[in-house]
């Protein structure tokens, strides 16, 4: 499906130059209501990753991009609109099968735990819909951020074999390398790093063997990054995205002790509708130890109703303009 450039340009009437601080979408954005209805009507409650009509999906992605644009986001995402199992969707794309239903961290969200039947099932987990959207947006030179996950879905799956993890992680990293052909920003969403260090060493050593041509982000949320892990993340990633809502004190201590190369501060609460009044203060406090390059919500926005998600990002944009 080809979208006429003039139509796409209408969605992004103002392309702003870089601000002192940029507003970034963390990862997910709530699905448009009509898209939810479409999915329901089509009976696509499960296994939709590759079966949504491309034109419909593109329309939903562009709508979500437009929302992010109008509320002033500088670096948007595609909203992860077909990720039925949250971060575990990556493992399912990589050949894992969806298994039993369990709670997604401490949220009222449930996902099917990815289970690997046999190693031979593993394949590169392609973000086809993201790449296809980037093709549409290419003439505008408006970068999107790709989101992927490696440790999390595996950590939460039934499989615990480190050799299998290496095979899986390499496939994910191959996809990351490919994603850099489409975007300068690829983010690993890894909340589980705040809870467990399982496979972390393997993951980081595998990273070293790849030479990526863009900004590799790491986002850890729901908590602060454990102190031992933090410097390793700073060494391995270009941008470290920290949760300054639910892990403010711990993460502040991290940046105070170890600094940061490029910091994305998650300062708007992505899990509560309450408006955030302390954001400016937080940026000023963090900036005493490390320059804040990007601001965002601490988590993806699918935990919020759409109206509140929009409001949160709009507030962040106002803060950016005031800084």
């Amino acid at each position: 499906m080809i979208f006429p450039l003039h139509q796409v340009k209408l969605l992004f009437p103002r392309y702003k130059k870089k601000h002192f601080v940029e507003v970034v979408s963390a990862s997910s954005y709530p699905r448009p209501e009509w898209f939810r209805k479409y999915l329901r009507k089509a009976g696509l409650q499960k296994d939709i990753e590759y079966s949504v009509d491309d034109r419909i999906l593109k329309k939903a992605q562009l709508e979500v991009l437009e929302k992010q644009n109008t509320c002033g986001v500088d670096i948007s995402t595609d909203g992860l609109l077909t990720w039925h199992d949250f971060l575990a969707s990556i493992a399912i794309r990589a050949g894992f099968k969806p298994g039993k239903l369990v709670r997604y961290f401490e949220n009222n969200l449930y996902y099917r735990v990815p289970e690997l039947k046999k190693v031979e099932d593993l394949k590169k987990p392609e973000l086809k819909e993201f790449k296809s959207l980037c093709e549409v947006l290419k003439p505008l030179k408006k970068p999107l951020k790709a989101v992927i996950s490696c440790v999390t879905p595996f950590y939460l799956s039934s499989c615990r074999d480190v050799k299998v993890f290496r095979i899986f992680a390499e496939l994910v990293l191959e996809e990351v390398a490919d994603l850099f052909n489409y975007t300068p920003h690829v983010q690993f969403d890894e909340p589980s790093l705040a809870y467990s260090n399982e496979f972390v060493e393997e993951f980081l050593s595998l990273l070293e063997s790849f030479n990526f041509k863009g900004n590799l982000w790491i986002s850890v949320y729901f908590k602060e990054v454990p102190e031992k892990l933090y410097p390793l993340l700073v060494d391995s990633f270009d941008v470290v995205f920290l949760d300054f809502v639910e892990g403010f004190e711990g993460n502040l201590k991290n940046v105070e002790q170890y600094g940061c190369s490029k910091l994305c501060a998650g300062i708007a609460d992505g899990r509560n509708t309450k408006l955030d009044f302390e954001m400016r203060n937080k940026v000023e406090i963090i900036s005493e130890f490390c320059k804040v390059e990007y601001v965002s919500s601490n988590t993806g926005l699918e935990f919020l109703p759409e109206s509140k998600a929009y409001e949160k990002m709009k507030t962040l944009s106002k803060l950016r303009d005031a800084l």
Partner: protein
Amino acid sequence: MKTTVVGSYPKPKWLKYVPEKDKLEAIKDAVRAVVKDQEVAGVEILSDGEVWRDEMTSYFANRIDGFVIYGEVRVWGNTYYPKPAIVDELRYRKPILLQEFEFLKKVTDRKVKVPITGAYTLVEWSFNEYYNSKEEAVYALAEILNEEVKRLVKAGADFIQIDEPAINSKDLEVVENAIEITLKGIKVYTALHICYNDYRKLFPEVMDLKVNQLDLEFANRKFEDLEILKEYSFDKDLGFGCIDVHSKRVESVEEIFKAIEKALEVVDSRKLYVDPDCGLKLLPRNIAFRKLKNMCEAVKIITFINEA
């Protein structure tokens, strides 16, 4: 052993086409239909299928002062719910479930249970804009639920089930206090329903909660979690979820029979309440009915064998 349900049951399809002016009458008819389904299937302790409720959180939030609803958020897959937000002090407005219960008593002679979404889950599944801490909100809500439970018991309810699917090992003490507040002054049979949780993290402490019965989901995880109960010498009454409510496959009588046998390795038959994993509302009605029927059939056979 007894057969029961967790709470919700698929609503008759025609209910959504009824105009608003006829809604009350239609809901009552729908309750009659749902109760009949359960009776025909052979369920001994039944519910009204939660036909009155649109959803287990917002139904309560809409009837308690202090909540608003901004919009829907995702629960899983492509399933969404209207997530409430606490924006003011929570206050008891008027009876929440009393009308439902009184009507149910009129339409069946069988024993019934009243499922109530617990204070912890209601807070966990809401945004909190007002209270300084989760605990504060949970305890305020537990007081409101206590008021409601007292009215239900006064009206004749003798089986109260608190639904706490959001229970979390980190907050077990909060849940424990909330249950105590909710059931303060209550002397009827009580159960706590938990599902899709990591039981390994909840045991053994969860056995200390002051309820008569723990009702747990087992079928979705192929009954592996029964091992945990064995490990900790489970000593409460057990609500044994043996029907997968997330699968349209109808479990055979034989399959359920074998599952119950496993449960009997953990508790005595007199302490066993056989039921589905969770509410049945997401299933097509005919499938929900067939699942219940097979479940009751399996219990009948196993009871007959044991007695023989």
